[in-house]
């Protein structure tokens, strides 16, 4: 292992002797490779700290979800964040909806679901918790600061600049929410979907907000497809639980997994139109028809995360979504069996 690495590590731990400290400073000034390595390692250290903080916060949020679940009814869970007097009026209205829905199976409208379940996602990327080492005057810091202060018209502006310079899951995600808050539904849909299709993190959160955005935009089927896909996830997060509640409130039920053949497959936008880094900031989704293997019935399907290798004729596993009041059932594809 190299000397520079050890020198830097010792520096971090504050263990350098005076002599070594002189060597360290000398190298920092005269050796560009050393300076680069030092800077990288400093950033890696900060990145690891930030990642540990995010992990700790999610531990706390998970415990809290358990507490809240135990001590309140499901109505209160979904209502947790609505605190104004106006909101408490909705609580009363919702209570009666629930009373009815127990018997008839779901009577909330999409609008009511949105009003009940939507809240801007708390900023876990940048905040007071990271300590005073963050310089506030960077573009990112200002974007997240505006977001923290719920100044969404400002955060929309700064995020769009930030995204030109730095594309990341969290930047797309929080920009998506800022745009949703400002009523720019199309941009919000694009950004949430970009996270789901191009990044490994924040996918669950993005899908939740995409589903809510679609609901607000009256694309009910697309919304249901995403709520259903969330509700089938194995994690026990608040989002997964809420997705199940939403389906219940909209009177939607899911069938067990069926097998069938993909009869028509389309993807928008098509592969060729997409630049490799996903820089085309457009919602990308897949749709078509599946034919159930035993009954021969055909159903439409829609997935916001396309299966890249899905071809017509492929054997797939799908789940049937049944909306209330005799509307046509439709499918989401769970796996390509080929």
């Amino acid at each position, binding site marked *: *292992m190299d000397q520079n*690495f050890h020198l830097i590590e010792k520096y971090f731990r504050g263990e350098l002797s005076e002599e070594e400290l002189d060597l360290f400073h000398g190298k920092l000034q005269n050796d560009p490779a050393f300076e680069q*390595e030092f800077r*990288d*390692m400093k*950033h*890696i*250290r*900060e*990145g*690891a*700290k*930030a*990642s*540990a*903080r*995010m*992990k*700790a*916060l999610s*531990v*706390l*949020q998970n*415990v*809290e979800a358990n*507490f809240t679940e135990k001590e309140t009814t499901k109505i209160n869970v979904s209502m*947790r*964040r609505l*605190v104004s007097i106006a909101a408490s009026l909705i609580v009363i209205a919702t209570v009666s909806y629930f009373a009815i829905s127990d018997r008839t199976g779901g009577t909330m409208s999409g609008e009511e679901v949105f009003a009940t379940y939507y809240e801007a996602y*708390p900023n876990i990327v940048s905040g*007071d*918790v990271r*300590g005073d080492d963050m*310089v506030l*005057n*960077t*573009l*990112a*810091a*200002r974007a997240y600061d505006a977001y923290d*202060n719920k*100044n969404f*018209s*400002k955060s929309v*502006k*700064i995020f769009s*600049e930030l995204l030109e*310079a*730095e594309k*990341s*899951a*969290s*930047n797309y995600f929080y920009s998506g929410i800022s745009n949703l808050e400002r009523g720019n539904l199309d941009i919000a849909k694009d950004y949430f979907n970009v996270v789901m299709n191009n*990044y*490994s*993190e924040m996918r669950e959160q993005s899908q939740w907000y995409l589903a809510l955005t679609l609901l607000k935009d009256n694309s009910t089927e697309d919304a249901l497809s995403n709520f259903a896909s969330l509700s089938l996830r194995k994690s026990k997060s608040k989002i997964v639980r809420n997705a199940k509640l939403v389906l219940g409130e909209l009177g939607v039920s899911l069938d067990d997994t069926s097998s069938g053949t993909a009869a028509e497959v389309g993807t928008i936008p098509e592969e060729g139109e997409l630049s490799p880094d996903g820089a085309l900031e457009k919602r990308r989704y897949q749709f078509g028809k599946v034919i159930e293997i035993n009954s021969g019935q055909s159903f439409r399907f829609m997935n916001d995360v396309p299966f890249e290798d899905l071809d017509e004729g492929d054997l797939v596993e799908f789940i049937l979504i049944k909306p209330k009041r005799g509307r046509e059932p439709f499918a989401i594809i769970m796996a390509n069996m080929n």
Partner: protein
Amino acid sequence: MSESSLILRLRKGDSKALEEIYGRFRTSFLTWITHTHKCTKEEALDIYQYSILSFYENVVEGSFDSMNDAGIKTYLYSIGKNKLLNDSRRKMKVTYKDHIEEDELIEPETEVDFVRTQNIEKIKNSLEEIGNPCKEILELFYFNNLSADEIAEVMNYKNGGTVRNLKYKCIQRIRKFLE
């Protein structure tokens, strides 16, 4: 379980210890802050989580080795109270300035800050991508401030030497992402 060993477990990044502390003071903290400082349950929860995280950060920075129940409680309460005061001050300031900020020009970025933010974001992503053991090792090293030997114990490695080798390789892998 005594407090000092709870703190010891917390220092070693044991998330069960974090959950235990969270559960232990939750009810009294929430009751206290909602009654004495007139905030909503939701604000109270945010503040409680913030206080627990601050406590955790202080533990890993070695600010205290042992502390009894009453000590932790007092500590959490004082963090919570300050946070609440700061937040309400900040809110007032923002409301006051709101209409001016809309038109404020966006100042140019200094290149150094920009590279730094960009790098840290890249590193967080690459940590997710390469996952464990790298992620855990680096978090334990840099956030929890554990020694290689302590990490070997926590992660069941033969000895500190193995951890040091892994750490070196992990860092080289992440540096590739930064190129």
